[in-house]
């Protein structure tokens, strides 16, 4: 059906809390740091799909994950993006954890666990350590299966700010988009909403992904694309339903106050196709058939930025068929692989 299927958001995990220590550098190997499961907000029965708990954490065995993704769901290429426990107060330790994650991913998932060659990886970097991030991108940028750079959605500053540009420039130089995704709960971070902490899990999960809007509005109004014209940002947790109201407002305001941000020399919405991608999951769609999906996707160019994102192995994960009912053939192809193929290097080679 409609060619390839690229899954833009799969979270691989270590088998247990100890596994990552084997990949830590010697200086940091004896340090303690939080486990991935230490989130404040817990899904009912755990964060991950119940059927996936086996010997280790769900999503921790490349063979089982391969079976679920490639055989059961018909995915052709899966982009793996590990969690790295958010912004640890010790930024050097945080950089070491990111380095360990990259060594672990390259070894366990992109080499050992990748006989079919369908896994792609994410170079995790710590935005609180700009030179450390640049060095990490330089170290892994040539790896043929690393296809993006990953940073936490929960940052201490908006990602359009100039202090981050050296990281974005290094990523652009290597031909890698920057994926901004939820990755925290254990480190330094602001509360998930402007009025503080959510009380319940549903409150948290319904709102959390929308924090991308703050980054997006900032990215589109700072001189970022003048300074780093090749930068591409992927918000893999989705939130596409918020794109139309906010980009419409931004365009409208820009017409009146454009002189305050003269580097934005076209309507902000015109930057989206070249510079922004959003993960697309069933939680992002309008409820039921309340709105014709064809029109919904076409509105403000959502169809040019959304990419299929299963969020495997989380419990709200998608199956591919959840997403295309009622879309045009062209929209289906964009969601399944074309939009991802435009930003991720080498992922559509199998299309030939």
């Amino acid at each position, binding site marked *: 059906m409609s060619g390839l299927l690229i899954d833009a958001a799969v979270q691989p995990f270590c088998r247990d809390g100890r596994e990552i220590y084997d990949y830590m550098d010697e200086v940091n190997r004896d340090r303690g740091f939080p486990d991935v499961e230490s989130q404040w907000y817990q899904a009912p029965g755990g964060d991950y799909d119940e059927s996936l708990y086996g010997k280790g954490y769900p999503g921790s065995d490349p063979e089982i994950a391969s079976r679920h993704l490639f055989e059961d769901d018909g995915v052709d290429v899966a982009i793996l993006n590990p969690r790295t426990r958010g912004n640890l107060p010790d930024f050097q330790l945080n950089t070491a954890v990111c380095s360990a994650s990259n060594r672990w991913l390259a070894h366990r998932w992109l080499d050992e666990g990748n006989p079919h060659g369908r896994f792609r990886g994410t170079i995790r970097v710590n935005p609180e350590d700009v030179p450390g991030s640049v060095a990490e991108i330089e170290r892994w940028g040539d790896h043929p299966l690393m296809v993006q750079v990953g940073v936490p959605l929960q940052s201490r500053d908006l990602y359009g700010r100039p202090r981050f540009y050296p990281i974005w420039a290094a990523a652009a130089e290597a031909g890698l988009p920057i994926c901004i995704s939820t990755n925290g709960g254990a480190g330094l971070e602001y509360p998930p909403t402007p009025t503080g902490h959510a009380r319940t899990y549903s409150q948290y999960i319904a709102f959390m992904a929308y924090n991308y809007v703050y980054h997006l509005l900032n990215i589109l109004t700072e001189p970022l694309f003048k300074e780093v014209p090749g930068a591409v940002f992927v918000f893999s947790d989705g939130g596409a339903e918020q794109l139309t109201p906010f980009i419409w407002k931004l365009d409208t305001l820009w*017409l*009146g*106050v454009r*002189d305050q941000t*003269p580097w934005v*020399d076209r309507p902000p919405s015109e930057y989206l196709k070249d510079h922004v991608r959003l993960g697309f999951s069933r939680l992002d769609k309008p409820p039921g058939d309340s709105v014709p999906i064809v029109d919904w996707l076409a509105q403000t160019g959502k169809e040019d930025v959304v990419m299929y994102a299963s969020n495997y192995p989380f419990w709200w994960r998608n199956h591919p068929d959840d997403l295309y009912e009622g879309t045009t053939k062209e929209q289906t192809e964009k969601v399944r692989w074309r939009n991802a193929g435009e930003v991720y290097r080498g992922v559509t080679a199998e299309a030939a």
Partner: protein
Amino acid sequence: MQVRQPINKGARRSAREYVVCRQEDLPPGRMVIAPVGKFGVGVYNVHGILYAINNYCPHMGGPLCSGNVYGTNLWDDVRGRAEHVLDGRIARCPWHAWEIDVATGVSVADARKRTRTYDVRVENGEVVLTR
């Protein structure tokens, strides 16, 4: 229509021409609205050069010429920085702040949006507008 500047007391000269005011009444940096057409026409002296635009905003028809006059900021790709340019040439609509270049009638943000311009000249010490 209510406008901040007093409607200038000019005189119709012919079916096509209108005497807006005397030249000395429109020094550099000043603007007068001539009661021409349905909405009036703003006549601007920008550093000694005269321009005239319809007092009708291409956005939603606001009284464009009753707003303030500014320059604007544009990105200079060669220098890699913002520059303040077109000083005194940008009419800012009082309704939603669109910027219109009075020399061309064109919106700075969206070149497809424009308001009508008029020929204006000085003849025998008088500012003459052609409709």
